[in-house]
Each structure stands twice: as C-alpha cells, then as structure tokens.
C-alpha cells in the first residue's frame, strides 16, 4: 500500500514535471495525535499523504490543550483539529505568544451544545425545543439535585458557560461539570441500559452520533455578541441566553517554521480541507468497524483518492 502511494506520487511528479521547488527537509514532520478517533485517523491520513510525497513523518501523542505550546515551540509541526469551542482559547493564547499561525479552515463545521440521546424524547416529548426543558426538569432530577433537573456540562476548561445559560434562560436545572469526555460517555452509557433520560454536553462531528443517535436541544438562535451584550438574545438582562453557534470553525494550525522547512508539505497542509461526512467516515472506521487508526487511514485514502490527490498535485 505504502509502496503504491509512493509510486503514484512519483508518477504525478513526473507527469506534471514541476519538481523545481525547494526540497522538503528530511527531518520527520511530527504530527500530534490526541485521544479521539477522528483526530487520530485524520492525522494518519495526512501523515500518509506526506509520506507518499517522500517526507518522513512521525506521530506523538499529546494532550489536546497542551499541544499548542508544543506547536509554538516547533516540537510538533502542525495541529489538524482546532475546534472553535473546545480549543479556541488555548489556540488564541498560543497565537498571542507567537510561534504558530492559522493554516486555514476545514469545510467541516462544528457544533457543541446541550444534547440528549433519542430515548430521552419518550420521557420529554416536547424536545428538542428548549422551552420543554422546564416542564420535564423532574425527569432529569437526581438524588443530589433534588427536584431540579441535572445537566452534565463539559469539563470546566472547555468554558461552555452552561450554568450561565441555565440562569439566563430561567431553567430549573443544576449544571454539573464532567471532568473529561470519557466521563460524558460513561454517563450516557450508564443511562443506556434502562433508557434513563439524560441531558449532556456533546458535539459534532463525533463518534457518539454513530453509537447513540440523538439530537441537540434547540436554544434561541445564536446572535453575534450574545456572550458580550446582554441586549442580545431573549433575556434582555443576561449574557449567554442563546445556543452556541451551530457552525463553529474547525481549523488547522501550523508552526511558523513549517513553511520554510517543508515547503511542499506546508502547501498541501494549507490545501487540506475535510468535510463533516468525511470526518465522520474516518471515525467510523475505528469506532464501529474496529480498525486500527493506520489501517483506517489507508482505507480512507484508497476510497477517496479524488479528494486528496488534487491537493498533492497542486503543491508539487
């Protein structure tokens, strides 16, 4: 498989006859991988594209927040999934310190909001409208929350402002912060057995959609400034009285030195842009079909040559 890729890349180079660029360095391009499947597979997809162009690639596992410090220092060359909601803050902090830059957006949009698995609807038929939440607060109650409903928000460092929203919209809910994504899945997984209604933080694209079908709660539509100007949104006196933007960005970030060190690979990186269905497909190979990430990347590349070949051709 790898051999084939190398050959086809060589063929492209020959055919187009434009191999007069400054050559990429032989040093390995270090790509960080995190702990969720789509990012791991996407990193391997991009890694294998680079390898097909003759580059050396290495992968390193890192924390998804701490990685921006490493991109900044050049320890890793790039980051393929910068989520607006989850990592925007860390990305911007590193951007201010200098050393990394924005390498363009994916086509994919991201959405992060209050979410429930489908079975919850049986207990609270008014959903997905947010106004139904108060009527069913008791359905979501737990021993610790008394008669209030319970909403399990993402980890505090994701800065989701769940508590502020509950307050601003007068929801009879207690907001609890989970400590990790794994904690969210465990909560849904535990509720699955006897179809207990749960309301948790979730996002798309994400493997969970394939495992537990579900929906986002429809909050008042996001207006720009909803987090800064109380006048925006239905509650004139409060911030965060809107849902999150339904189309958040998914960016790529690159180390400032990457363009000089690996000019061709850098051009490919700029051209790379995946869509939501493509990302979901990558995740599915691992999460549902139980492939190893490397295999999943190979399978994806084989099935989607039309998608990625043009990026390489344009850069060579």
């Amino acid at each position, binding site marked *: 498989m790898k051999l084939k890729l190398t050959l086809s890349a060589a063929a492209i180079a020959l055919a187009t006859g434009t191999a007069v660029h400054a050559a990429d360095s032989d040093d390995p391009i270090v790509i960080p991988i995190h702990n969720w499947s789509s990012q791991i597979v996407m990193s391997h997809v991009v890694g294998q594209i680079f390898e097909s162009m003759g580059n050396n690639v290495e992968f390193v596992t890192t*924390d998804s927040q701490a990685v921006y*410090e490493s991109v900044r220092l050049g320890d890793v060359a790039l980051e393929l999934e910068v989520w607006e909601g989850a990592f925007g803050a860390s990305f911007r902090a590193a951007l201010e310190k200098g050393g990394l830059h924005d390498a363009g957006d994916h086509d994919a949009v991201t959405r992060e909001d209050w979410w429930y698995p489908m079975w919850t609807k049986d207990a609270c038929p008014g959903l997905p409208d947010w106004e139904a939440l108060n009527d069913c607060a008791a359905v979501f109650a737990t021993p610790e929350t008394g008669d209030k409903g319970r909403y399990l928000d993402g*980890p505090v460092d994701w800065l989701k402002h769940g508590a502020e929203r509950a307050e601003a919209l007068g929801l009879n809910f207690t907001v609890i*912060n*989970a400590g990790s*994504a794994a*904690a969210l899945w465990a909560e849904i997984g535990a509720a699955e057995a006897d179809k207990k209604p749960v309301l948790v933080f979730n996002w798309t694209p994400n493997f969970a959609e394939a495992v537990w079908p579900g929906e986002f709660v429809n909050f008042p539509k996001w207006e720009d400034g909803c987090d800064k100007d109380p006048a925006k949104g239905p509650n004139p006196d409060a911030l965060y009285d809107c849902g999150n933007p339904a189309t958040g960005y998914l960016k790529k970030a690159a180390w400032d030195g990457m363009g000089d060190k690996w000019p061709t690979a850098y051009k490919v990186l700029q051209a790379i842009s995946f869509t939501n269905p493509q990302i979901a497909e990558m995740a599915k190979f691992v999460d549902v079909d139980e492939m190893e990430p490397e295999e999943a990347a190979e399978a994806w590349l084989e099935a989607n040559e039309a998608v990625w070949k043009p990026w390489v051709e344009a850069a060579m």
Partner: protein
Amino acid sequence: MADVTADIEDTKNGLSSTRVAQILLVAAVLLAAARPVLPEFMIRVPEAWIPPFAQWLDYFFNVIVIEKLKIAVLTRWFAEGPLEFMLNTMANLLEGKRRWPFLGPVPWTAVAAVAAVVGYYLGGWRMAALAGGTFIWTALIGQWKIAMQTMSVLSVAAPLAFFTGLLLGITAWKWELVNRIIKPVLSVLQTLPFFTYLLPAVIFFKVGPTAGAVATIVYAIPPMILMTTLGLKKVSPEVVEAGKMAGCTRWQMLTRVYLPAARTEILVGVNQVIMLCLAMVVLTAFIGMPGLGAKLLAMMGSFKLGRSFEIGVTIVLLAVMLDRLSKAWVVKLPEHHEKGTPWWKEHVVLLTAIGAFVVFLALAQFVQVFDHIGRKQDFSRGKEIDTAIKGFLAIDTVQAFTGWWRWFLNVWILIPFRNGLLWIPTPAFILGIVAFSCWLGGKRPAIYAALFFSLVALSGWWDRSVITLYAVISAVILSMFIGLPLGILASRNERWSRRILLACDTAQTFPSFIYLIPAIMLFGVNDVAVIFSIVIFTTVPLTRYTIEGLRTVPPEMTEAADMSGATKRQKLLTVQLPLALPTMAVGFNQAIMFAFFMVIIAAFIGTQDLGQELQRTLAGTDLGKNFVLGICVSLMALSFDLTILSWAERRKRALGLA
C-alpha cells in the same frame, strides 16, 4: 495510649503535647462557634492579603530560569541529544522505529524466549512461565507494538533513574549537607501531584517520549536515593574494617565493599524504581509518551471498555512480572563457581538465552506469526468484554444497590460533611489540624502542620484545598471500613493472606484511569464516584499493612495471651492489634498519600477541587499557578505524612519494636 508515651517524652519541656493539643482544640472549637460574630478576615483570608505567588513563580521560570540562566537550552540539548538517541535506539530495536541502528523490531517470540530464560534463572519454572507468558499474552492480544513502545521508553528511563538515584544516594551518604538538602526535596517530590511534573517536563524536555522519560525518572527516583543511603549507612563496621585492612583505595572501598554490602537495599530500590515507572505509563501519555498509556486514553475517549480493560491487564502483568523478577533477584545470592569449571558451564544461562534468541530470530524469518501477530490474528475480545460490563451494570439489583448508595452517601454524609468543612473559618480549621497533629505526632509535626496549612491558606486556594481534603478524609475513612476487616480476616490464614495480597498487587498496578469509567457508570458524575475510585486505591495499603502487621506479631505474645485464657476477640483487641498498630500506621499513611494522588486523577470524573484547577493549567500557559496548586497538595499531604510517621516511630519505641 498514645498520650502515655507522649507524656513521658514531653513533660520535661513544659506542657505535654496532649495538653497543648487540648488547648488548641478548645481554641478551634471556640473560634468556629464564634463564626457568626467573626469579622470577614477571620473567616477567609481576604483576596488583598494573598501574595502573588503564581506571578513570582512565573517570573522565576520565564525570566530567570529560561531567559537569564538559559537552563532550557541545556535541558533541551540533553533531551534532543543523548536522551533522544537512547530512546530512538531502543525504539528501533523493540518496535522498529526508523532510526539507527535499523535492526528492529526484534520478533516477539525471541523476546518472550529470552524473558523466559531470565525468569528461569532467577526463580525457576514458575518465573519462567510468568515472564514468558506475559510476553505471549501481550503478543496474542494484539498489543505487541504499543507494549514495546512503552517498554522502549521504560528501558531507558528505569536505568537512568537507577544510576542517577544511586549516584545521588551515594553523595547524600558521603556528605551530610547534601543529605539534609535532598531529604525535604524528595518528600515534596513524592507528594507533588503528577500534573505538576508534566508541564515543566514538556517545556524543558520537549513533548514526546523525551518528556515522558524525564517525568518518569523524576517520579521514580526518590525511593532509589533513599534506599541507597539507607543501605550504605547499614553496612556493618566489621565489613568496613576488613576492606580497610585489605588496603582498598577509596574507589575500591565504594565499589568492592560498600555497594556489595548494601546490595539488598539497593535492589529493593531497583524494584521500587520499576514499579513507579510502570505507574507512570498512563499519566505520561498526556505529554507524549507513546504506547499502552496513549492507546488506553484513546480507547477510553471512544468508550471502548473492553479494549481498555485488556490494556490494563497487560500493564498489570508487566508490573507483576517485573516486580517478581526483581524481587527474586534480591533474594538470589551471587553464584560462585569452583575453580576449573568449564567456561560454558559458568555461563550456561547466558548461552541458553542467546541460543533461544537466535533460534526464534531465524524462525521468524520464515514463519510470519513468529515475527509478529497481524491484525485479525489476535485474540482481543474487546467487544465481548464491553457487552459483559454493560450487561453487568444493567442488572436491576446492581442499579438499585448503587442508586441507594448514591442517594445515601451524597445526601446524608458527603454533602453535609463537605459543607461543614467549608463552613469552618480558616483559622479554626488550621488550629484543628494542628491540634490533631500535636495529639497524634507531637509538637514537631504540629509546628510543620501549622506552617504548611497557613501557607495553603495564603495561596488563595483555600476552598479548593478544603474540598480536596474532604475527599481524601472521606475516602480514607470509608476504606478503613473495608480494608481493616478484610486484613484481619485474611491474616488468620496463610492461604487467604497470599490471595488477598495478590489482589492488592493487582488493584495497585491496574491503571487508575480504568476505574474512573466504571465508577461513573455505577454512581454518575458526582462525589460518590470520585470517592469510590479513591477508595479502590486506598483500601490496598490498609489491607496489606494490616495483614503484615498482624502476621508479624511475635508468637510469644499471642501464646501468652492464649495461656492467660483470652478469647479470640480479647486476643485480637488487646494483644494483636495494639502490637500491629505501628505497622498499620504505615499503611494508613500510605493510604492518605494514595488518596492525595488519586483525588487529583479523579478530576477526570469531575470535581471542584485543586485537581480541577490543575487540569485547567495543562493548557500550558500557567506554569506559576500550576506550581502553586501542586505545592498546596504537597503541603497538606506532608503535614499528615510527618504526623503519622512520627506517631508510628514513637509507638514502636514504646513497644520496644524499633
């Protein structure tokens, strides 16, 4: 009982520590009772009084350490030069990374065969089966490559920790000044939460296996230093005399006399190094350590319980194997051959190992499964285990049981206890802790406790510290209800003792992360799940040391009790337990240390304590804040550590056991 000895010691210098403790306690209670009329600054330290420790530390790191002293340049040179070279070499040999010497990966059968030969040499057929079997399991379950990634880093980190530890240990033994400096640093290192190691490791040693190796070394080194110093101090004067009479130079004295004489302690240190290295396998995955830990985190992120569980089993097997092998090495005395033994006979083990290695290396060239187990050839049962775990959790009685406990513990115990602790004014809280420390450990630890907790109050993270402490105390008390009875029951019978001790080993080496998910699935994201996951960890030392304490009660004592016609119960309560208490105190102390360790990890479930803030600092910009939080945990842990150890020491002396 404690007060009897305390009084004997302390009456000569004024008030006894028990009396001081009583006075302090009364003061604490009065202060707490007066809360409604206390001025605001007596309830919590006002924001304005809090020194900007975090900014100072940030300045210290960014300006002095990094810009002025250029320490980072030096450490980065080390990381990217020698360290990376060693890591790459091992990575090439074990998992086939494309680096010099371009030889690897070694076939799994060859590794397993060599391990089995080494096992046989150290401990006979049983060890051979354990060592070989562990590697066979790893390969068959389809984790060979990731396990070797882990091993390649550990095979660099463990020897480095060993040599550095040995060297520091020798220096500390030679120069008392070094010893005095090193001791407190080691105490802090041993109690510092792992989150605090990670950030400096990344900044100074580059994210990836290098940072992983360094964090592992720092974590694993303290016992090596302590054991080396201890061993060298214990070398008997006769041995030293003999060496001097033989006319040894100073270097010869060290390498031929002292170090061999301290062999047992040093090897115990080696054992500790190995165990601590394995304990870091998962945690270092946050900073780029490849292998089992990284895979485990990825599996947990996509809710694959079965595969996570299998990885956990591999880690436990590796840990148990290395533990047993290194312990066998401690017991095994160096062999001496008669003069005239043929060369091959002297080195028969080495030759067998080489022979086995070559045979399997050759076989692997022709038979693919001897070289590596391909995907779809392995025996992983991830999906089936998933179904089994989910099926178990879905059983109605399990749900009803956990549901009741969740309600009972949360509503009636944990939440009121926590709110109670938070209600107490800071000065009263500190006085209370100091009174406890004084009563149990005496005046010295009490002074430290006062100092340490005042610093915590001044750090500006008081409420979060109290919440951390609340989880620790609740978990330790709960695990006493489990660990002590279990230990007492198990100690009655040799067979059961061994079984329970094996269970303890397993629970301790099983990566703590794996507990988090079942804890949440059983109890939901709340304090019960947090405390449950801590309790699994803290019960281990309580059980272990109860068994050890009870089993090492001198038989004369129990016989004396039997002869005087004591019932079983009387014997246990008045003879065995009091004598076992100092040993049990060590277990109690370890339980508290484990609780402080685990409560930080429990941030991944969802807490509101120091761990949650520490997790937040991982984004990589707040080195100063990260340190302040870490030190808060460390100071609280140290206060308990000093108090309990001082108490155990005094009890031992009073009982004539020391």
